[in-house]
């Protein structure tokens, strides 16, 4: 789950960078927000992936 989360974080940033590099005009912003949403999803997964480890270590 952790790895999946980090991959989603990177993918989200990839979408943002691709939108800035490849697109022009009004279509850029929606892709930036879409990429950001993917990152939020990745962040949730990363947090969930770290939950069991935290409890076990304590």
């Amino acid at each position, binding site marked *: 789950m952790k790895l999946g989360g980090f991959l989603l974080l*990177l993918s989200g940033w990839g979408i943002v960078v691709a939108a800035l590099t490849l697109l022009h005009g009004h279509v850029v912003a929606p892709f930036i927000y879409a990429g*950001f949403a993917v*990152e939020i999803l990745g962040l949730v997964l990363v947090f969930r992936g770290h939950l069991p480890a*935290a409890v076990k*270590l304590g």
Partner: protein
Amino acid sequence: MDAPTNLLAFGLCLIFLILVPFTVAGLALINAGLGRSRSAAHAMTTALCVMATAMLTYFALGSAVQGAHEPPLWNNGWLATLPSKNFFFHGISWDQPAAAQILLPLLGISLASVVPLGAVSDRLRLGAACASTVLFAGLIDPLFLRAMARFGAFQDAGGSGFIQAVGGLTALAFVWLLGPRQGKYAHGGMPAAIPAHNQVFVLFGCMLSWIGWLGLNSAGAMMRAGAQAEQSILVVVNTTFAAAASALAAAATTRIRFRRPDASLVGNGWMAGLVASSAGCATLKPATATITGIVAGVLVVLSVEWFELHLKVDDPCGSVSVHAVCGIWGLLAAGIFAERAGQFTVQIIGIATLLGFIFPLTYGLNYLLNRFLVYRVSPDGERQGLDLHELGADAYPEFVVHADEFLQR
């Protein structure tokens, strides 16, 4: 980054920059105060060593990676100019006022490198802290500065992003890599309260940080947001109002939730307001700076509780909540309250870069380094306290300390 153009602006900028180390001193005091007495000297020593490592690493490597004293790099493609020839500050004309532009990232990155220490106090080895700082000051933070240099419109004058959020996200990576302190989470996952050893240090650290932050935000506004010298008054007002509103909001929130104001969370609230004020300090109005502070104050209390109770993040100083969460809120607030159309989207690009590029990078690099150079002190060392274990002497040798009554058995 704009270099100060006239002599008055240069002199004023230099005075503001000289105040910035107060921020580091304040943060180090907060970290030491919120940790345990058996690791207090270690916390201060680590802060000093990490700051020194950060500055020398930035001198040797970071400024070249950032391209701090070059013309905008992205025009020619950044990969083509990486690494640049400007290692060891090569090529700076020291007799020109423009040389001052190197000081803000130098001091800012040294401040940012102290931020993660609070999250892993009582369990991070001194050598590992310095080694990870080489990655932080030499690569991670300069890369963010380099990436955002492309977006001139990105508002981060005082460093809510490049100082606070980068430091806070690194703190989160550290907490996950090192795990919680011994006895923090019982088998049911309920956290034990491990009290701060000196609240006076914490609150004095907050006041000391305020002085530094006035300098940091004022210098940042002039050098990174093109503010004129006269606008420093607005920057000082914005910074102070945000911190004041945030501290009161944190006090009110803890009063409502826990029936009495919590001293360390009020201190965290003050810091959260300072952190959140940094991004838009040059463009916010006093009213919007106050709103930014109020939101930061509420956010930091809820965030500290959420991280500790539900996400099992053992962060003794609330570094992730104060610096990462409120740093990102500050970047967002600078976009929300901006008069310029499209500013919010630019701020989202900056936050997306922090979360999607910098956070995986800092986690991945520290994960690899942790494989070779174990970050966490041994269980015996943790029980003994880092002062005795790593430094060979206690911070308070004449006190009878080390009560473990709070630990769940």
